[in-house]
C-alpha cells in the first residue's frame, strides 16, 4: 500500500484527467455521435425494410387470394355459360327439328291433296271419256240395229214386251 501511494503520480493523474475529458468530448462529437446515429438509422432502415417486405408479402397473398377467387368465379361463369349454350343449342336443334317435321308434314299433306285432286280430275275425265266412248258405241250399235224396219219393229216389240212384263 505504501508503495502504491508512493507510485501515485499527481502529474500523471492531472494529465490523464485532462486528456480523458478532452478525448471523451472529441470522441462524442466526431466519432460516437455520427457512428451511433448511422447505426440507428441503418437499423431503423432495416426494420422498416423488413416490415415493408412483410407487408408486400401480405399484399401479394391477398392479391393471390383475389386472383384465385376471380379465377374461380370466372370458371363458374364459364361453366354456367357453357351450360346455357348447350341448352340453347338443344332448344334450337329441337325447335328446328319440330319445324322441319311440321313443314315436311304440310308438304306431304299438300302433295297428297294435290295427288287426290289430280286423281279425281283424271277419274272424271276418264269417266267422261268412257261415257262419250260408250255413247258413241251405243249410237253406233243403235244405228246399226235400227237400220231396217223389222229391226225397228222388233225393238219396239221387245221394248213393249219388257214394258208389259214390268
Amino acid at each position, binding site marked *: 500500500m505504501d508503495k502504491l501511494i508512493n507510485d501515485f503520480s499527481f*502529474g500523471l493523474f492531472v494529465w490523464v484527467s485532462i486528456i480523458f475529458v478532452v478525448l471523451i468530448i472529441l470522441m462524442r462529437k466526431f466519432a460516437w455521435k455520427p457512428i451511433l446515429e448511422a447505426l440507428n438509422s441503418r437499423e431503423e432502415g432495416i426494420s422498416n425494410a423488413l416490415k415493408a417486405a412483410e407487408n408486400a408479402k401480405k399484399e401479394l397473398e391477398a392479391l393471390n387470394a383475389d386472383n384465385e377467387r376471380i379465377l374461380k368465379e370466372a370458371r363458374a361463369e364459364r361453366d354456367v355459360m357453357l351450360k346455357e349454350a348447350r341448352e340453347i343449342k338443344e332448344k334450337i336443334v329441337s325447335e328446328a327439328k319440330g319445324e322441319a317435321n311440321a313443314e315436311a308434314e304440310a308438304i306431304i299433306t299438300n302433295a297428297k291433296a294435290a295427288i287426290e285432286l289430280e286423281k279425281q280430275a283424271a277419274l272424271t275425265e276418264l269417266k267422261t271419256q268412257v261415257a262419250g266412248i260408250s255413247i258413241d258405241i251405243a249410237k253406233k250399235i243403235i244405228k246399226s240395229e235400227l237400220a231396217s224396219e223389222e229391226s225397228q219393229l222388233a225393238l219396239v216389240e221387245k221394248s213393249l214386251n219388257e214394258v208389259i212384263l214390268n
Partner: protein
Amino acid sequence: MLTLVPSFTMNANDDQHQSDAHHEEATHHENNEHDHEALPHSEEEGYNDGVNSKEEVAEYIQHHLGDTHDFIFFSDEAAGHHYGFPLPIILVDNGLKVFMSSEFHHGDKVVKKGDTHYRLYHGKIYKTDAEGTIQYDEHHHPTNAKPLDLSITKNVFSILVISIIMLLLFRSLAKGYKNGPIPTGFARVLEPLVIFVRDEIARPNIGEKKYRKFMGFLLTVFFFIWITNLLGLTPLGINVTGNIAVTICLALFTFIIVQFSGNKDYWKHIFWMPGVPVPMKIVLAPIEVLGMFTKPFSLLIRLFANITAGHTVVMGILAVIYIGKETLGTGGSIGVSLFLTLFINVIELLVAFLQAYIFTMLSSLFIGMAVEEHDHH
C-alpha cells in the same frame, strides 16, 4: 515486450563478465537505482551472481511498471546507452519550468533551473543541491522536497498517442457511413465492437431509455482501456493501465458520472433504504455510503492489479532465460521461457479485452443502478 530481451542480455553479460566493475558504473540510470538499495545488498552482490541477477530482474520489472520521463525502447547497460527519445519536463515550482528530459541524462546529471537544482531519482524529480544530494528517512525513502511535476511522461505521451489513434480510427468509421450504411475495410472490424458495447454492455445494464446519454463515456473508456492494454503487450513496453494514477482517474470518472446521474431513488436507497425497519435503515446507511466508494475502488484495483500482474509475469518469465541458464542450459531456458511467455501473452490478450469489458460493464451497471426507475410496491 520482446525488445526487452536485448536489455536483459546486456544485463546478463554485465553480470557475468563485469560483476566486479558493477559498482563503478554509478553513472547510468539502472545503477543509480542501485544506489538506493546498495547498502542492504552490497554483500550479496559481491559474491553471488545469481542473486544479483534476480535483483536486477526485479529492479528492471519495477522500472518497467513505473512511469518514466523519457521514452526508452531498450538500453545498453554496459555502455550506458539508452535508445529512445526524451520527453518534455514541466515543473510548477515558483513559476513554470519547461525543459527536455535529456537534460537529466537519465538521472546522471543535476539540472539547474532558476536558482533551484533538480535531480531525477527513481523516476521522480526532487529538489536538491548542486551535488544532487538525496536525504533518506529510516524507510530509505527520499525526504527531499518535490516540485509539482506536470511533465509529459512516457504514460502521458502514450495516452496522447492512443487518443490520437482512437480519434483517427473512429473518425474514419464515422466518415465511412457518409458513403453508405455498410462500412468498408477496417471499419468492419470496429463496427461490431461498437455494437457490442452498445447492445451487450450499455443497453441491458442502463436500460433502453437512458443508455444513449452514457454511450460517449462507455465507448471511450472501453476502447481506451482495450487499446492501451493491447499496446502494453507490444514491444513498445508501455504500462498505462497498470499505473495506479490512470486507473484511479478512470474509476473517478465512473464515480462522478454515477453520483451526478443518480436520481432520487438512488439516494433514497443509500440513506433511507425503503422496505426495511427503521433500525435497519440506520445500520444500512453507512454501509451503502461505503458502497458508493468501494464500487469504483474495486474497478480501479481490478484493472491496475490485472495489468500489473500480467506485465510482471510476462517479464518475470522472460527473465527465466537469464536466471535459469545454469539449471536448464541456454537452449532449455530460452525454450521454457519463450513457451511460457507465449502462453501468458495469449492469456494477456484475453485479459486485455476482458478487463476493458469488465470495467465498462461494471461502470454501466453502476450507472444503471443510479438511473434505475424503481416501481414501489
